[in-house]
């Protein structure tokens, strides 16, 4: 099948789990012989035609504009970074149009909108262009191009990931009349741990209403979608995420002599870093030899830094800042206990990765991943004392800790993207 796929993140340019999940899905779909035309928030109007398995890493580029494509093909790039620079692919896509440039582009596009959901969506997007918020403007621009992509690229199905690309998916569907699948990796409720941004809710709502099928990454998320957005249960499917097999084996490579406990992810309210910090301050009283690492970056990073300092956790609670893939592997190799403290985690690939390193893991019950793994300790995110007790238990019982790690490792090795791809393929077939 020929799949037109819109997503906001894809390796090597990722900030979180979305890019990693998309990579896993695309890779497994390519293995099953599908062709994927990937559209990312690049500055230039390009897409990535992926037909061979290797393409998932090679990321061949095609410009929509013929002349520009000819120029691109003539260029020689010394490094991959140069090529990505050329097409304007950055980790944090920024708006590159002025507000005047793209005012009400949808009004000009002469697309006829028939349903009230479409109206909701278009309103949000048109306002978005005038927004001071760079992300909204970027989404508006991304959406504005969808029409051209849908016209140029031959496809059988449209598959979009998270709200940032839902409006683009709707536009594409209007142009090509092909079935649309919205894949939900996280809702605004998860990200904000509460109410969130109304505009995003509206986009999520309209996007899922207009989709032919909705894929949720867990039962936890499907319930959220059905409860909060009143999406028809018949069109909601659960496809759990998985992890890629690691090519390089990483041996344990300690940083600290003492037991090392790690938080890894974006430092945002969704991930519950404050619960991790509170548990750390309890554990450190009993086990001053332990070391806590908060790995990642995010809007709560400074707050966590100040809180750890105010708690006088000395040099026993450290911050790594943003880590790239290699560094994540290194930090996992140095860790004994992994904690997922998320307030609301639709899935959670990071705990699977941690477990694949044989790290004993403690996982928030408010997560999708806790539905599918057995060999991990599970706690409610808010139960800081229970979390601290669990960490203490694993520190004090190294044999049990090793066993839990080993069992967890064996368990997650069986969780592969292939079975996820099979399910996705089945959902595609039903729509054709």
């Amino acid at each position, binding site marked *: 099948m020929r799949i037109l796929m819109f997503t906001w993140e894809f390796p090597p340019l990722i900030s979180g789990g979305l890019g990693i999940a998309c990579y896993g899905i695309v890779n497994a779909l390519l293995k099953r012989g599908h062709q994927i035309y990937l559209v990312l928030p690049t500055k230039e109007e390009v897409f990535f035609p992926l037909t061979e398995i290797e393409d998932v890493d090679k990321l061949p580029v095609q410009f929509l504009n013929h002349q520009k494509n000819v120029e691109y093909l003539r260029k020689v790039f010394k490094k991959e970074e140069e090529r990505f620079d050329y097409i304007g692919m950055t980790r944090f896509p920024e708006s590159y149009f002025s507000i005047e440039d793209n005012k009400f582009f949808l009004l000009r596009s002469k697309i006829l909108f028939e349903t009230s959901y479409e109206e909701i969506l278009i309103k949000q997007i048109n306002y978005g262009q005038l927004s001071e918020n760079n992300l909204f403007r970027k989404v508006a621009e991304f959406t504005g191009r969808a029409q051209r992509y849908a016209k140029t690229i031959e496809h059988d199905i449209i598959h979009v990931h998270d709200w940032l690309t839902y409006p683009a998916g709707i536009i594409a569907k209007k142009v090509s009349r092909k079935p649309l699948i919205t894949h939900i990796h996280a809702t605004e409720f998860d990200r904000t741990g509460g109410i969130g941004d109304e505009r995003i809710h509206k986009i999520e709502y309209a996007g899922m209403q207009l989709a032919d099928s909705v894929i949720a990454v867990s039962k936890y998320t499907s319930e959220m979608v059905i409860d909060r957005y009143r999406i028809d249960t018949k069109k909601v499917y659960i496809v759990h995420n998985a992890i890629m097999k690691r090519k390089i084996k990483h041996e344990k490579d300690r940083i600290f002599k003492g037991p090392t406990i790690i938080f890894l992810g974006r430092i945002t309210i969704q991930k519950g870093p404050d619960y991790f910090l509170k548990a750390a301050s309890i554990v450190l009283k009993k086990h001053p030899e332990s070391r806590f690492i908060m790995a990642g970056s995010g809007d709560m990073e400074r707050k966590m830094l100040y809180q750890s300092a105010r708690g006088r956790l000395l040099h026993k609670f450290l911050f790594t*800042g943003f880590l790239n893939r290699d560094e994540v592997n290194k930090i996992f190799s140095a860790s004994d206990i992994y904690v997922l403290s998320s307030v609301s985690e639709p899935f959670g690939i990071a705990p699977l990765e941690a477990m694949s390193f044989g790290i004993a893991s403690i996982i928030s019950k408010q997560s999708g991943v806790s539905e599918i793994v057995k060999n991990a300790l599970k706690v409610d995110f808010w139960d800081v004392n229970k979390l601290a007790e669990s960490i203490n238990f694993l520190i004090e019982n190294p044999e049990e800790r090793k066993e839990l790690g080993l069992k967890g490792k064996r368990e997650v090795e069986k969780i592969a993207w292939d079975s996820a791809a099979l399910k996705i393929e089945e959902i595609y077939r039903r729509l054709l």
Partner: protein
Amino acid sequence: MINILFYFQVHQPFRLKHLRTLDIGTNQDYFDDKKNRDIIKKIAEKCYIPTNTLLLKLIEKYHGKYKVSFSITGTAVEQFKLYAPEILESFKELSRTNCVEFIGETYYHSLAFLFDPDEFLEQIEMHKEMLLSEFGYSPVTFRNTELIYQNRIADYVWETEGFKIIIAEGADRILDWRSSAYAYKDYRKNLTLLLKNYKLSDDIAFRFSNKGWKEYPLTVEKYVKWIEEISDTEKMGRELFINLFMDYETFGEHQWEDTGIFKFMEKLPDVALKTKKIKFKTPQDVLSLVNYQQESLSYDKFVSWADMERDLSAWYENDMQKNALESLSYILRKIKDEGKKDLLPIARKLSTSDHFYYMCSKYFQDGDVHKYFSPYNSPEQAYIYYMNAIADLEERF
């Protein structure tokens, strides 16, 4: 008579590398050799060498009538030896004129008095030994890091052999209606206390090139006139002391050469000495000059010469600074308890006050100054690198 006492602080910290958590345990040197070398070389060229040359010329020209005093930290001397030995040589040349007084302090320009009096006294001893071996000099004047002062510090210094004078910031809240132009005693009347004239000091150190200042441009004549006006208020013939204390980097670094700062300094003794009322002295001369009963002043709270607040807040206010200092204190104690002598100089380099200054998160005006002097992008970054260094140090046990 009125006496100008110049005192210049010469200090360079060992700046830290951008140490990451993943660097811990990889046997890294914590200090940024390249950055430290570049900075020393740059300041040598812009400030140390030309200013030393100028001072030497003035001292020779005025045959003992022009004098200055320095406090040079151990970390500065170590880096001169590593990166620019000619600077140390030129200070030695100055010291041979006998018109230069060297002032004692902690070797590491540290905040040790805040958390460990023993460490504080040990670092003072180290500095004395350094002055003796490098310059053949035994100091009688003490000044604490960044002029941080409090009664307790006077007590410690009094216990240390040789010190008779201590210098501090002439903060309004201590002086009240008094003038910094008189010599005082500390609260127990043990040490002579000399206080910085912050107005006249900052006129040179901060305002000299400020075009928005109503006195700009500052001419030597105008400046000397201000000093004379102070002496006019003294009707009983008491000796007055105008204590001009500042960073040595004022000359050529903070105030660039094109501001005319060197010309100002060159002309100052000429105009001042012609008045026949003004002399140039150093702190130790005060002991024999003072011709009145010195009033004792009590400093209960910390004062310093930093920022608008003139207190400890530049180094010890936010939680990052406090947590970092506690971590340092912890590691120093552990090193001493377990006799890890090889780790001691490294931990002590981390006691230098600048590391805490970089973590200062006060905004507004002073934040800008901190930013100017910081090798890092933010106080949080400075804190992260520092804490990684301390964490690494503990893994070396």
